């Protein structure tokens, strides 16, 4: 089930349109449908979970407390009827190719749609701000944004003088997808003192051959896949990989690290710990 978190991340590299933020004041009895787990997570983090009247399947799987809410379909095949049935005031979407069409149809029947791009870190922070405005939780939103910014700045400072290990973040095996350049995870990696080998490819989430991976020689492998068992066992098939030899193959929680959501400060912490060890990570939070 955790693999579904990757769906949120992986759909980001599909082409998308810019959305126009709205400046309306949010009424107190606002009804919101969310078709994206990162947006759902942000709303919950802002304490505004009660505005949700409908969510997608992946959000439901990730947030057990929302289990009672009506479902409106999957990420790529949401149901127009299900959305309309819960009479939302606004539907929040991340504009992937599939949802662009859905958005058009919603707007045709007069449902208000708010679009949130979440590829770059700055966009994620803006999403938190906009959602905060939408549900009248600007203060909470501000806190979260500040926490993330501070964590990032702190990490940059802490890790500036340290060694920057060659790193790869594995999103999927068979075939191998890694974190490339231009996405928020790449930015976090840069901030936490990792040299992201995947940035050699110009795209955010490229597919790579294992041969290339071995030749690139990563010193740290962060395996985010949901295959059972210790990822070190899998990667030990190629003992020449420096990360394998040094036993620096780590598994991190994808809901924290790959979700473009409200707790990217924890993602920063996770990454710092993975890359530089527990003691450095503790200095991060004890700032």
């Amino acid at each position: 089930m955790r693999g579904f978190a990757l769906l949120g991340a992986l759909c980001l590299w599909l082409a998308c349109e810019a959305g126009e933020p709205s400046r309306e004041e949010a009424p107190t009895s606002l009804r919101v449908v969310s078709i994206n787990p990162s947006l759902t997570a942000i709303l919950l983090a802002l304490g505004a979970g009660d505005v949700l009247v409908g969510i997608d399947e992946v959000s439901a799987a990730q947030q057990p407390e929302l289990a009672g809410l009506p479902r409106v379909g999957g990420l790529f095949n949401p149901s127009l009827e299900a959305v309309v049935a819960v009479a939302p005031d606004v539907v929040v979407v991340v504009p992937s190719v599939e949802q662009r069409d859905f958005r058009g149809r919603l707007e045709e029947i007069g449902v208000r749609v708010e679009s949130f791009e979440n590829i770059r870190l700055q966009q994620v922070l803006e999403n938190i701000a906009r959602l905060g405005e939408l549900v009248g939780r600007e203060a909470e939103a501000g806190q979260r944004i500040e926490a993330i910014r501070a964590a990032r700045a702190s990490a940059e400072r802490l890790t500036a003088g340290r060694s920057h290990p060659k790193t790869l973040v594995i999103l999927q095996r068979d075939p191998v997808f890694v974190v490339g350049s231009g996405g928020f995870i790449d930015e976090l990696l840069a901030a936490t003192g990792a040299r992201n080998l995947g940035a050699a490819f110009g795209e955010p989430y490229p597919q790579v051959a294992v041969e290339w991976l071995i030749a690139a020689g990563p010193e740290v492998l962060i395996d985010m896949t949901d295959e059972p068992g210790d990822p070190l066992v899998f990667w030990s098939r190629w003992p020449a990989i420096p990360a394998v030899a040094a036993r620096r193959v780590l598994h991190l929680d994808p809901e924290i690290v790959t979700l473009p959501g409200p707790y990217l400060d924890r993602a920063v912490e996770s990454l710092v710990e993975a890359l530089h060890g527990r003691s450095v990570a503790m200095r991060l939070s004890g700032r």
Partner: protein
Amino acid sequence: MKHLTARRFTSVIAGLLLLLLAAGLLGLVLGPSALSLADVMTALSQDEGAAADIVWRIRVPRIALAALVGACLSVAGVVFQALLRNPLADPFILGVSGGAALGGIAMLSLGSLLGLGYAAVPPAAFAGAVVTTVLLYLVAGTRGRVSAANLLLTGVVFNAFASAAIVFLASAAGLTEGARIFLWLVGNLSAARLDVAPWLVVFLLTGFSAAVALSRSLNVLALGDEAAEQLGIPVAAHQRILLLATSLMVGAAVSVAGLVGFVGLIIPHLLRLVLGPDHRLLVPAAALAGAAFLVVCDTAARTLLGGRELPVGAITAIVGGPLFLALLRRHQLQVLAR
């Protein structure tokens, strides 16, 4: 009078063996990471280091598996074409591949629910192949003899059912599973592990031995079931053995690599054009040529797009598709001329 002599046999087989070796060498040397020939040669004598890992733990297994899968599919293709009396029959027609694909894809879609990783997929696919073979034989065999028409119809129905089930599973799947299902349907060796190789070898040898042993029957069956019977061939028994043998080979190949198309269709047909239809030569030739062909295709799949990998089925389709059209046209012209 020209006929198949030991001498001709040996020279053709030797030539194809050399071709296979050349293909293997090509596969060792080419790949997405830049290794020079010298690097490869040193890596061959080493056990450690990135180059050795690449050569021994990626390229060599891929070459071995591609060769085994290619051989399985080609030999199965030859035998199916003889059993169905149709030089353009494909081993996937018979439904065994549909069953194997369904088994594999079911495991791909639902495996994570059961806590099973990718390693469970080949056995599941093979189980699908076995079940389908049994069902196929029960349904299509009447009074012991399996008629070509019955086989064909039953196979088409099985495949249609399997396709429907696969479409359903694919629609309900998430992004990750969906991508993997797509790769499976196209045919892909990147996920295959060398530990399936022993099984593949066993099934290939079993099927291959049966086909070689019954090569003369394969020839005589071209005359028709009755004529073959009258020439002393126990047609029903031989058909059963050959069907089982080829189902094993197809099942094993699909379990490991998914539905790699065109190999089982093109290689037998091309070889027949060049070497003649005598199965005593065609069967072993198909094994070697099919192996070489798939090794080259897989090397291309690994290398063409740099860091990215194409599924090998995409390459066999690009090569095989136009070739198939050309052969089909030639075949139709021949039929018209008769």
